[in-house]
């Protein structure tokens, strides 16, 4: 590509294209009549494919040695209030955008068998996806929060309508929990604006402002807990297993896979970057809570009998690793946390899509009621087993590196917590293997003789997710080289 072409390419607002292409799909979906279910699915899936392609392009064109934020677009939006439509990504943003695109696309594919209220489903899902893309790309605090809230609300109808198992309760609980987190953020974010002089909402510009130390100490918990609720931090994680259990497949995938990462991303972007002293001051207590997440989540998962509850609590445990990494405030910790965000996203998406497939046929998620699924539906079972292995931190999958980095950092900074977190790996293995043994191994249960094996079409998204896990599992440098520069800035910043 010669220079001239490169310049032309740069003029294409890539980030806006990523954020707004689902919006286009949303408009098309809303415009289509509800009976054109097939067309709606195709439009959504194509939009997912497009975002994957654009995200890959973003990844390829992102220069890790270049300026921190790239693909920056800035348009004054509410000039008299300092708000601008300001997009840009650093390496973390690129990785997260890629994650969202992958999960979005595979989620669309996984839902290709949906029959009921297709139009509304995809409309809400697209809204959710727009919000998530927006958060990852926003460099303006106003839009950051705007998109953040956009992403939260569709969860309610998505779970309450298409979910199962106490779905209305779960949907309400989830929404209220998350919005309660937002309630903490609302004053905190506004306060940041005024304290920094009340002229700009731009995150890079706010980051350049040295907030007074006492102010940071007071404000940081609001930001951490506010975003932390969405990241499933103990003791505010209760919404997450309940919500995941109730949600339909693709929603669980998006929710556990991507939405929970918004919380961690918020802590990173707003908390750690703007309030480094606060982050440092509170690192100890929050690291303890994060370790509780890891250990407690795994222990509770050991007692669960419902597939999705097991995954839900394992998510709590795995998100604990993210939170622990964030609280280390070392390059290793942050790299590990970000990598774990990515790995956990893909892994959980795989988990939920694997369980979703079984549930769709069996209408049962009781682990003890199954048996010998590996004989009945070997390929569908293999997806779950692969996800389980990844969840146990087996090398060769992306999460191994993430956990390793966090552990390396944690043992250095909080030795006791680090060792505890590593020991929790045993518990992780215990509960995961219990599921394997109960549901997939053992003699085949004649009750499920009618289960049919996954079709190649439905297997495609799962294969894709496995491939992503393996690629990043064997070549962690792909992701680490991308984010290293960005995390270094975060740790180095004041």
């Amino acid at each position, binding site marked *: 590509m010669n220079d001239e072409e490169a310049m032309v390419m740069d003029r294409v607002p890539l980030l806006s294209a990523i954020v707004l292409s689902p919006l286009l799909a949303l408009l098309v979906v809303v415009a289509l009549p509800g009976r054109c279910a097939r067309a709606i699915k195709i439009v959504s899936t194509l939009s997912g494919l497009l975002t994957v392609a654009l995200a890959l392009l973003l990844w390829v064109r992102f220069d890790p040695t270049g300026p921190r934020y790239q693909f920056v677009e800035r348009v004054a939006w509410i000039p*008299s209030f300092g708000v601008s439509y300001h997009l840009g990504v650093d390496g973390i943003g690129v990785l997260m955008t890629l994650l969202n695109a992958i999960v979005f696309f595979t989620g669309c594919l996984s839902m290709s068998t949906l029959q009921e209220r297709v139009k509304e489903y995809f409309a809400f899902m697209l809204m959710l996806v727009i919000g998530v893309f927006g958060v990852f790309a926003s460099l303006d605090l106003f839009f950051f929060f705007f998109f953040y809230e956009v992403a939260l609300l569709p969860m309610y109808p998505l779970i309450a309508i298409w979910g199962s198992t106490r779905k209305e309760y779960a949907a309400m609980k989830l929404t209220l929990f998350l919005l309660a987190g937002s309630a903490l953020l*609302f004053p905190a974010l506004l306060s940041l604006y005024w304290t920094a002089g009340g002229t700009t909402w731009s995150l890079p510009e706010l980051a350049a402002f040295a907030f007074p130390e006492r102010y940071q100490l007071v404000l940081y918990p609001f930001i951490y807990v506010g975003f932390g609720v969405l990241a499933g931090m103990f003791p505010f994680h209760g919404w997450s297993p309940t919500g995941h259990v109730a949600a339909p497949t693709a929603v669980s995938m998006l929710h556990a896979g991507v939405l929970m990462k918004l919380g961690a991303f918020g802590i990173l972007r707003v908390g750690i970057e703007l309030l480094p002293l606060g982050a440092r001051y509170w690192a100890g207590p929050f690291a303890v809570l994060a370790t509780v997440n890891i250990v407690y989540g795994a222990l509770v998962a050991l007692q669960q009998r419902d597939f999705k509850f097991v995954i839900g609590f394992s998510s709590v445990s795995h998100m604990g690793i993210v939170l622990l990494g964030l609280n280390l405030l070392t390059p290793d910790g942050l790299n590990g946390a970000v990598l774990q965000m990515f790995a956990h996203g893909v892994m959980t998406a795989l988990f939920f899509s694997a369980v979703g497939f079984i549930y769709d046929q069996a209408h049962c998620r009781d682990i003890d009621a199954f048996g010998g699924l590996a004989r009945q539906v070997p390929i569908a079972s293999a997806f779950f087993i692969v996800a389980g292995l990844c969840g146990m931190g087996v090398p060769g999958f992306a999460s191994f590196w993430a956990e390793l980095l966090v552990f390396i950092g944690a043992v250095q900074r909080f030795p006791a917590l680090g060792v505890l977190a590593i020991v929790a790996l045993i518990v992780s293995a215990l509960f995961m293997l219990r599921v394997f043994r109960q549901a997939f191994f053992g003699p085949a249960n004649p009750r499920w003789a009618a289960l049919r094996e996954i079709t190649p079409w439905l297997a495609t998204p799962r294969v894709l997710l496995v491939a992503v896990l393996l690629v990043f599992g064997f070549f962690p440098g792909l992701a680490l080289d991308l984010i290293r520069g960005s995390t270094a800035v975060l740790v180095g910043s004041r």
Partner: protein
Amino acid sequence: MQHDLLLFLPELAVLLGALLVFVLSTGGCGARATRYAALAGALLALAAALFSLRYGPTGEPFWPGIYRVDLFSQLLKAGLALGLVLTLLLTGELATVRPGGRIDLPFFLLLATVGMMLLASATELLTLYVALELSAYSLYAAVALHREEAPGDESGVRYVLMGAAASAVTLYGLSLVFGAVGSTYLADVTAALAGGRPLILVVGLLLLLAALFFKLAVFPFHFWAPDVYQGAPHQVVAFVATASKLGAVGVLARVCAMLAASPSGLIEIFLVLAVVSMTLGNLAALAQTDLKRLLAYSAIAHAGYLLVGYGAFSALGLAAVLFYGVVYLATALLGFVVVCALGRDGSNPGLDALAGLHQRSPALALMLLTAMFGLAGIPPAGGFVGKWFLFAAALQRGQFELVLIAAANTTLALYYYLRVVKAAYLAPAEGRGPVLLSGGERVAGSLALVLVLAAGIYPAPLFALAQRAAQLLLAR
């Protein structure tokens, strides 16, 4: 003089519309004709107000110091005219209005609008009072037009009695102000406040505030709201909840602007009232099953949010309040479109009446969803940005705790808004037939929907107007 009348065009259009309706109704024409006449007047007023926003004619068409036309007043008038138009669009089928009153309803609505438009421009105490009463009495009459005598009367009587009490308080307050300042011009009052704060003047203004709080349904003057919302005809409530509220928002902004120079003491009162209003409103709304009553409590809570903005006594606060007032008008109206469409049989729709709405009328369900998102303050509806501005104003004053409470309240409120959404989107229709929207409802709903979303996604133009208006108020 011609030029001056041009300044008066929005009011004039509504007034002429009202006269025309009066003539037509006495002349024996049907409800249809009066409705169209009213609509024509309202549209003309809207056009005139928007025109004046665009080209900004300012001045004082009457006696200097009594009546002022500027961006602030015209912004309000545009909002009021919009509210009027939207409400009139909903008056196609007046199921809840007693047959004899159907022909009169537009007249009262127009008259109330005239009153509020005058209110927006009035810069003299007596004018203010007269305008206030004009709008109030028109609404008392309209509220009493309910089909079923007993409940209609009850709510009408309540409204009148409480309104009368508020009116008395206002009058007393005004007399105190006059006694303290020796003039009825607001400019003189402002000047007097700048010179110091004689107790008698402050108490007088406080009493004036009480009247406005009454219109806004702020605690402790909110008691009328649930009953009136429940007992009055749908369309009248729609007007009371939207246009009338905006009128009160505007005047309150003017009074607060006068007090902004030395707000000490008032801030605390505003804070307390804000917290109590929103908490009480939201809590009580949790328990409601009647959609109108739920909206009434939601309105009380929103009055609390507005007070958060007023309580900042700053340019940003006033701008936020004006912005929120306009957005709220559109959002609440969306809710009432649903009420009117579902309450076509004359009943008050309960939450169970919403069941299966997404099948019975996807468009209406979408409007309801947007309304609920807007009221809850969820983007991309305008309520989010509105709250952002309001709370930002409070935080500019460093009122972190207040904003925290307010934000917690929005979470609390989400519960009942989601219950509404749940009823509309989750519950099965169970044999309830499809809901057909009338043309007026369709237009009004779409307009409000677009406005809510536009304000949420690209708030800059409206907010810039509100900011300029707020600066004008404070400059005076």
